[in-house]
């Protein structure tokens, strides 16, 4: 099954973390991608900071373009990966090893991808 892992962070909480520690953990993020290469599809991405986000919203007079992310939450999406593994337990097991989970305010949302469109027939 395929799952999207959405990596989210709280920039306000990360601001108080020692930069050396952030750096050290970031190095292990590369290692994590190497270790899990067999389960990762190519389509993942790391995103530039949320300050660069632009949102296109529906409006009464057609689409509206605004500065900023799609919601006002403190959590921001930092990137995503696509996993191809046997089941949810395998996805959870890999997500649990994400090095940044040692830092405060980090969360990974796991969402199954729609693969079988016959369910909508």
């Amino acid at each position: 099954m395929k799952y999207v892992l959405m990596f989210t962070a709280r920039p306000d909480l990360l601001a108080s973390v020692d930069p050396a520690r952030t750096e050290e953990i970031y190095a292990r993020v590369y290692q994590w991608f190497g270790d899990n290469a067999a389960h990762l599809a190519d389509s993942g991405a790391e995103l530039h900071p949320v300050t660069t986000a632009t949102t296109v919203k529906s409006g009464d007079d057609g689409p509206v373009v605004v500065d900023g992310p799609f919601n006002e939450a403190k959590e921001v999406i930092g990137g995503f990966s696509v996993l191809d593994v046997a089941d949810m337990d395998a996805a959870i097991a890999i997500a649990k090893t994400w090095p940044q989970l040692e830092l405060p305010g980090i969360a990974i949302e796991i969402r199954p991808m729609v693969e079988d469109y016959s369910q909508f027939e």
Partner: protein
Amino acid sequence: MSTADPDGLLARTLREESGLLVARLSRRFGDFDLAEEAVQTAVVEALTSWRRDGAPDRPGAWLQVAAERNALDAVRRGSRQRALAERAPPPEEPRDGTDERLPLLFACCHPALAPEARLALTLRAVVGLTTPQIARAFLVNETALAQRIVRAKRKIVTAGISLTVPPPDQLAERLGDVLRVVYVMFNEGFVSSTGPSQDRDLAADAVWLAGVVATSLPQEAEAWGLAALLTLQHARAGARFDAQGRLVLLRDQDRTAWDPTALAAGEDLLERAATLRSPGRYQLQAAIAACHASAATWAETDWLQIVTLYDLLLAHDPSPVVRLNRAVARAQLGPEQAALALGEVDELADELASYHLFHATRGQLLTELGRSDEADAAHRTALGLTTNDAERRLLLTRLHRHPLEDGS
């Protein structure tokens, strides 16, 4: 087939068969949602038909035929099911000696499911209760409960939560989730009155399920510990309510009404757990229950031993409720200790302000220390917080009893 207790027989048959059928049909069709729905429908059909015509000679076979027919009907109806059935992996036989219900139970208690959905789903899929029975047991709205169950089942299928027993490195954590659900199931059943209005005894179902888990995972000390704890607690069920349906506390119970066979079975289970040399919260709670079981009276109870067991339990579970219970035991060691125990209870005031048993316990201690005005105030607060009828009646009795008449 015996007709002495048709509802009891019906309940036991459904409990024994329905979880196994859900497990087998899930494997066969590769779709847990379809399998569970087919078995649930068969259970509802059985309840109607068996009550009307009496149970068939082979109730298990009857249920299996009905569930299979429902599953095949559903497959014929939906292309989605057909697609799932076609891409389903070949049926996987469970590991040797493992109960077929165990993978199902781990899926129903999966941490990716909402905590409030786990118990409801377990009761339906593993224990064979119907949605109306569960709604009645928890006094919740049936429609809302049904939606919660549907959401959880869909998530199991859509999010790829597999019906498997976790590998050894994840077993301890996941087993903790399973045991917690069984423990809550027991408490829900144990707190509510087991009067004739209820057609399923949740506490008895939980004792049974704890036994299934322990037998299937014989190396897991806490699984045996939970089975021991629930068996020992349930052995006292006959003494927990008086003829008027009022709750009777441990100190006032008629100990001759305890079930000696069940108590002995509970002690055997605890010994079995102890041989694995891996103590935990359920084993320690069972050891405390065993201390009560072996005491002839409340006064002759080995309170020092019980306080010691609570100290050990605090290392595994430092929750305020455990500290409250420890204080109750300590208060039995004499007037000086009772005053100190009250001090410990008062320290929990912030954390347990909304817990009715905190105020009820405090009221009891104040009564014992002769501070009846404060005791009444505490009992009144407790009364305002409990939702259980039997507990309300007990608290009212305490409020209206003159302190001097208190025989404890």
